[in-house]
């Protein structure tokens, strides 16, 4: 009896190890989890649109390469770091998820970054913003795909100081992302010869900005920098118009503005805003064709840069898994860094050792209502920042991965 049991268990162990040796893809399926805000402030700029983008990437990948079985799932982290890391743990431990993508809300992204490193899985941050993800919190298991606070600060901050906006007041969302964006922009403003007259930190999220705007108004700064995102930004812009801030000679700088925010504001209120993004649907034929497909499946809405980044990131990940014949997180991320990136949305690019994805960055201005040909025709291109200048030089980030080399 005991002998029989031993035999059985030995056979089972053998079968298990044999299975692992043959198929390196865990559970025989590559499971991708889209983790973002599905219902709150950031649901329109990420949310279900990002899930669609991930599915489109899988579809496009499968059309060329049928070697993998792929599954996409999604969950709502409610912009709470504890909820986000709990989901991440459960996904990695018991649901067999191999890759987590998107993760807006920097505080959540930083938490999931930590969990992913612990578990040796893979994370592609697309909508999360803090440049710390490739700085002091960088990890061999994370790639920061679409944009970051340093890039936004560098693109927008520099352009505004150079055109005369040399005194600033910051309206900052009081959490990791706002702090990072404020810090990075302040550095750029001072380096370009401007000065910062004051700042106020507002709770995240906030509906009423009138008292913060009043403080900004009293500072007499030429530029009011909005270091926040989503509904916080749109409400601040809307209420600034009401308090006659722009008419009084002060200007607003939206440091992180998504296409969906401009859509919510309407051109009447958003016109003239200048900001930095990594993607716009109307950049070239390829982005237009892809966005048209996306819109057809998403009620006519055009993608935000975060959603576009999810597509591009997932596609590159799948190419790396296929090349490696394994979905081991650490190995795949290393492979992704070794392979050049190429997709219809961001063109050719690369990934640095610190996990930063490198591509062009664009300075956009919002069109006047008279210049727009219809819904979603919102931006005109002011300047293109070439890929090699768009992001923080690797040596300045303080990423331990790079320093160790």
């Amino acid at each position, binding site marked *: 009896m005991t002998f029989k049991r031993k035999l059985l268990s030995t056979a089972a162990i053998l079968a298990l190890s044999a299975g692992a040796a043959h198929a390196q893809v865990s559970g025989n399926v590559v499971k991708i989890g889209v983790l973002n805000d599905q219902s709150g402030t950031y649901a329109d700029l990420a949310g279900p649109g990002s899930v669609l983008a991930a599915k489109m990437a899988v579809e496009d990948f499968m059309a060329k390469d049928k070697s993998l079985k792929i599954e996409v799932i999604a969950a709502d982290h409610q912009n709470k770091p504890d909820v986000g890391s709990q989901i991440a743990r459960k996904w990695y431990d018991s649901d067999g998820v191999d890759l987590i993508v998107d993760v807006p809300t920097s505080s959540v992204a930083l938490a999931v970054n930590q969990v992913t490193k612990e578990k040796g899985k893979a994370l592609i941050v697309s909508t999360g913003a803090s440049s710390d993800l490739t700085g002091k919190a960088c990890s061999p298991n994370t790639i920061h795909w679409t944009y970051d606070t340093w890039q936004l600060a560098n693109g927008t901050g520099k352009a505004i100081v150079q055109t005369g906006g040399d005194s600033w007041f910051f309206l900052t969302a009081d959490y990791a992302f706002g702090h990072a964006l404020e810090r990075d922009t302040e550095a750029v403003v001072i380096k370009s010869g401007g000065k910062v007259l004051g700042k106020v930190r507002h709770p995240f*999220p906030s509906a*009423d900005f*009138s008292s913060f705007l*009043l403080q900004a108004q009293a500072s007499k700064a030429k530029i009011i920098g909005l270091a926040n995102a989503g509904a916080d930004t749109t*409400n601040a812009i809307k209420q600034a118009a*009401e308090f006659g801030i722009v008419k009084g000679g002060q200007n607003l700088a939206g440091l992180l503005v998504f296409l969906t925010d401009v859509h919510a504001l309407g051109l009447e209120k958003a016109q003239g805003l200048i900001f930095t993004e990594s993607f716009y649907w109307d950049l070239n034929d390829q982005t237009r064709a892809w966005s048209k497909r996306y819109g057809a499946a998403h009620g006519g809405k055009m993608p935000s840069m975060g959603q576009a980044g999810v597509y591009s990131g997932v596609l590159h990940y799948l190419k790396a898994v296929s090349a490696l014949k394994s979905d081991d997180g650490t190995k795949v991320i290393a492979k992704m860094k070794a392979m050049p990136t190429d997709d219809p949305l961001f063109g050719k690019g690369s990934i640095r050792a610190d996990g930063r994805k490198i591509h062009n960055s664009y300075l956009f201005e919002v069109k006047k209502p008279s210049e727009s040909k219809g819904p979603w025709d919102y931006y005109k291109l002011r300047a293109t920042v070439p890929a090699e200048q768009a992001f923080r030089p690797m040596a300045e980030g303080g990423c331990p991965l790079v320093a160790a080399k």
Partner: protein
Amino acid sequence: MTEIFGKPLPVIMGQLLIGLINGSFYALLSLGLAVIFGLLNIINFTHGAQYMMGAFAAYFLLNKLGLNYWWAFAIAPLIVGATGVVIERLMLSRLYKLDHLYGLLLTFGIALIIQGAFRHEFGSAGLPYSIPEELSGGNNLGFMFLPKYRAWVIVASLGVCIATWFIIERTRLGAYLRAATENPAMVQSFGINVPRMITLTYGFGVALAGLAGVMAAPIYQVNPLMGADTIIVVFAVVVIGGMGSIMGAVVTGFGLGVIEGLTKVFYPEASNTVIFVIMAIVLMFRPQGLFGSR
């Protein structure tokens, strides 16, 4: 420049005024809640969703029927109030005999359903709604720039609050209502249709939420989540003022708006929390609320 605690006086004056404006919304919303709780004993958790529906009603009246802000100001509360009547007749009326908790759970569930449906349909970034032509622009008061629309919000909500208080506390209709909550059987025996009166009261409370929604639409984005964010603060206001006390709801609404405004100058990070701190303190020393009776 004169300074108070290191802050320039004009800034403080400005914040006081802003506090009053925000207080107007708190007052209007907590008034509706107080009326419903005072007369129906229902803790109406759907209030935030009904406030949001008011804003959406204004948006649709403008964009589908071309009716401007003033039409919305009159019609949207009626529409939202009518949905309230339906909810009361179909669902709430079955719960009066049960514990408060059931009404709370039901209205909370309805709120989640309504918000979920709107979010599914319209997304969460919100829709734009402009300030009416007549009220755009503003006046420079010396210490701050006061948008005309915000001034209108204070005036209108004060007017509505006073009128409501007057109807309930000083008219015959109000007396019937108050009597009906004390002893419905007795009032019914005098030939007054109590169930209908209760239905209309709920409709009225809900209409107040709808009205607040219309007034909020030009200031905030018309957003499916706007009510969910506000309702928690408003409940704190009602608790501080004393559940069911109409005067309490109005006075605490304005008062807390001002306190919150001042917090935004001195310690902005705490401005979302200060109301709840006050609530905790009040509950410790005066559990029935500032204006409540035991």
